[in-house]
């Protein structure tokens, strides 16, 4: 792989005009990094900024892209959603970046969408999200509900996962948990789960007093049926939630909690001994036993100068997204947005779990789905994984209005919300 990359880079170098060679040294390709470095989301996003800086540094060591060095432009949107749009515009218009890697929350992504469309630039979005979106200028390298939530629920329903019959869907009150839970609720009902066997609960951002909810879960779980909690609780609120769970003595053997937003990084702030066995569903765990992953972790820990620093799924998604962009640029021979958008579909790069991830026509990628149990050392141990790769589905098959839509950004369709019923591009209304 490395060989072909450097080969490509060499080819790129040679094709770039001889006249340009003399100042190729100074000319750089600019890459924007749009992650919050202050405010509430800094806790998660700062890590991704560092991961991107590391990836860019590593790429430059390999000779850059198209024979030019990459230059990172870092801005701080400060967890302020409208500021994301301003900073995105600044990156593209003022700094002239060719691609942007960034955003974490769905609301920040929604806020920058019009900017990327208007200025025709590229955004690589590395976080799991609720789906129901596919934009020409955006590449979703995190999980969609069908590459995270649905397989997790399938696992818990299986005999191996404990044959769960009763479900608590607990989430933070915003768009990602609400949409995911809507999809899950429809999916569970389609599997024959009765209305009274599903409890849905929302809490505010940063909720810290979980006593009532944990005791509700206990009560709900004492109805004679095997119960599990599906948690879309976001970032900060997880620590007090898990502390309360541990103290209240809810064991994973009795009521397992499967989380979609809790990774190695979130567990770093917790004593995980009472949490052994609780689950998380991701496309990557730091414990993945592959050479690529071992190398990645080593580089990361050397880069941050902290030998205990953990890696997590959004970092892998950044890694995949970045490599896909590099490959697509090499393939297109230019960083021009339109050319890259055309070139990137079908590009496939190695992921860190031992396979290859490919960019699909709907701008989502194929990934393996892993279910891991929390271990005493704060790592996850994979207890189940899909037999092959699963392609991210932009439009859920379990939601009214969304199930008829498909997305395909290749010519001639070039549409993010093609309605197969009406045969028109433009979503469920047309």
């Amino acid at each position, binding site marked *: 792989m490395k060989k072909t990359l450097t080969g490509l880079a060499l080819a790129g170098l040679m094709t770039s005009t001889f006249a340009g060679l003399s100042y190729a040294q100074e000319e750089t390709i600019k890459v924007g990094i749009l992650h919050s470095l202050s405010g509430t989301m800094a806790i998660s996003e*700062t890590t991704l900024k560092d991961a991107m800086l590391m990836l860019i540094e590593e790429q430059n060591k390999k000779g850059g892209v198209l024979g030019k060095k990459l230059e990172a432009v870092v801005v701080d949107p400060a967890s302020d959603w409208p500021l994301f749009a301003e900073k995105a515009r600044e990156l593209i218009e003022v700094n002239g970046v060719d691609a942007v890697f960034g955003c974490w929350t769905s609301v920040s992504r929604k806020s920058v969408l019009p900017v990327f469309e208007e200025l025709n630039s590229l955004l690589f979005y590395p976080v799991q999200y609720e789906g129901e979106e596919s934009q020409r200028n955006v590449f979703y390298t995190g999980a969609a509900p069908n590459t995270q939530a649905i397989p997790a629920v399938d696992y818990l329903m299986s005999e191996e996962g404990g044959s769960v019959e009763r479900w608590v869907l607990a989430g933070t009150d915003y768009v990602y948990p609400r949409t995911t839970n809507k999809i899950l609720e429809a999916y569970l009902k389609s599997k024959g789960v009765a209305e009274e066997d599903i409890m849905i609960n929302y809490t505010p951002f*940063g909720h810290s007093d979980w006593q009532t909810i944990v005791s509700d879960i206990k009560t709900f*779980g*004492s109805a004679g049926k095997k119960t599990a909690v599906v948690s879309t609780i976001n970032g900060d609120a997880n620590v007090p939630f898990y502390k309360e769970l541990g103290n209240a003595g809810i064991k994973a053997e009795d009521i397992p909690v499967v989380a979609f937003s809790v990774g190695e990084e979130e567990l770093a702030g*917790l004593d995980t001994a009472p949490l052994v066995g609780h689950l998380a569903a991701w496309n990557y765990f730091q414990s993945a036993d592959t050479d690529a992953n071992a190398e990645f972790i080593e580089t990361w820990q050397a880069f941050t100068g902290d030998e205990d620093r953990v890696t997590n799924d959004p970092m892998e998604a950044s890694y995949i997204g970045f490599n896909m962009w590099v490959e697509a640029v090499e393939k297109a021979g230019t960083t021009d947005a339109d050319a890259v958008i055309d070139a990137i579909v079908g590009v496939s790069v190695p992921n860190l779990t031992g396979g290859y991830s490919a960019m699909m026509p709907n701008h989502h990628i194929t990934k393996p789905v892993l279910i891991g149990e929390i271990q005493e050392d704060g790592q996850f141990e994979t207890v189940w994984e899909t037999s092959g790769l699963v392609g991210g589905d932009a439009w859920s098959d379990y939601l009214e209005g969304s199930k008829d839509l498909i997305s395909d950004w290749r010519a001639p369709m070039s549409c993010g919300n093609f309605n197969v019923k009406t045969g028109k591009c433009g979503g469920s209304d047309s």
Partner: protein
Amino acid sequence: MSFLKSFLMFLCLMAGLVGTGAAQSDLESLRPLVNALAEGKYKETQKQIGDLAATGNPAVAPALEALGAGELFFRKSDKQVFIAKKAGKGYALSDPLTLEDAGETGRRAVTKIKVNNNLRRVIRSALGSLTLLAPDPKVRMAAAEAVFKAKDPEAIESLEAAIAKEIDDDVRLVMEQARAAAVLNSDGSDGDKLEAIETLASMGNREALSLLIGLRDSSEGEVQQAATRAVNTINKSLALWDNAQNIWYGISLGSVLLLAAIGLAITFGVMGVINMAHGEMVMIGAYVTFVVQELIRSSAPGLFEYSLFIALPLAFLVSGAIGVGIERGVIRWLYGRPLETLLATWGISLILQQAVRSIFGPTNREVGNPDWMSGAFELGQLTITYNRMWIVVFAILVFAGLMLVLKKTSFGLFTRAVTQNRRMAASMGIRTPWIDAMTFGLGSGIAGIAGVALSQIDNVSPNLGQGYIIDSFMVVVFGGVGNLWGTLVGAMTLGVVNKFLEPYAGAVLGKILVLVFIILFIQKRPRGLFALKGRAVEA
């Protein structure tokens, strides 16, 4: 924890017993069964655990226990199974049956035998039936509880044998309950089942309820009627306990609010400074706890249980010193200009947050709970977690201490004098600027020790303080500015009201309703619950 200790003692005892003489050959006959664990995936492992449990030989208990704890490994070279404990970079091995030391090995030479939740459940019940006759009553208690959860009809026989021999009344009771649970799950006669229903009904807790609901939905005739009656009785008593639980949760939330707000009650309530950086003082207190624990972990691990006591005075000093610094550096130039104070302290709060973020990084820091703050105990049908209970106690102590300082010390007297009539106090020879700084430092220091307590239940991240600043202002304004008793009553009222609303309205709506309630209340009583009366108000 104590269970684990006694279990280990039991294991040692077992090792001593089986290590001698004739039992040796008996042990060796178990070895193929133990070594079989090295083969296959979860499904096979489950069968192998069943085979081990079927021997009924307590000597396999240590191996099963290690398997459940993820400490059972097999050597790659010869597929021999060992109990492995982390030692330096590698593992210290011991024999799973004789428990004899088997040397050390590198990390790469052994592979962990994987377990998942399902297997842990199977192991738990297998261990339960194996250790019902253990010499230590605590182990027997844990065994009985595990058998209760497993509700396996095949355990009835061994339970009956154990009940007959049991001398400890508490353990026997749990064993009888476990037997009842197993009977309900068996094909026993209706008479047996009715008796079992009675045993379970007298437990009155959720576990019994869960079993009885299952029975109600799956049986018929007399048994079903009895189960329905029992379910209704338990439900009725649980409804009462629910109220008690809500009150306890309310007091617990109230005490957290009180801790967060009480420092503000001094700076805002007594001095009238709108201190937006108050939350950051709490956050700094939490980070002091983190630093103390890190130091203890690296240099004196034995002191970990006392880390919070060491952190308390330090947190008070650090936060207090920063508070004095802020007062001397910024706030004293802005007395009498509330808007500018608000903006300036808001800026300070951002600076402090970003400073902590730069020093400690943006991610959560792990602050451990000492053993005496972990876990829970049962009070009737109430589950009370130790950390919440100690925080309630701590909040009351802080409140009482602060009251003492303000009412009984000369510093308190000076503070009250300055807040009531600054010029008069100055004429009496009190150094009012010095008192201002000290009072502000006191409020900040109290916030710092609140941070020590909050580090036990919340995230230790740079955002910690932001989550509490709004709530703190709400408590102080609601309770009445300038009155510590008001803060106490305000915090407790808001806590209890919140917790009674939450089950019905949900956490999000509950919070909104409380806010609306406070707004309406302030319309009616602008000075809060306990308004100051007299000339001080007009001053």
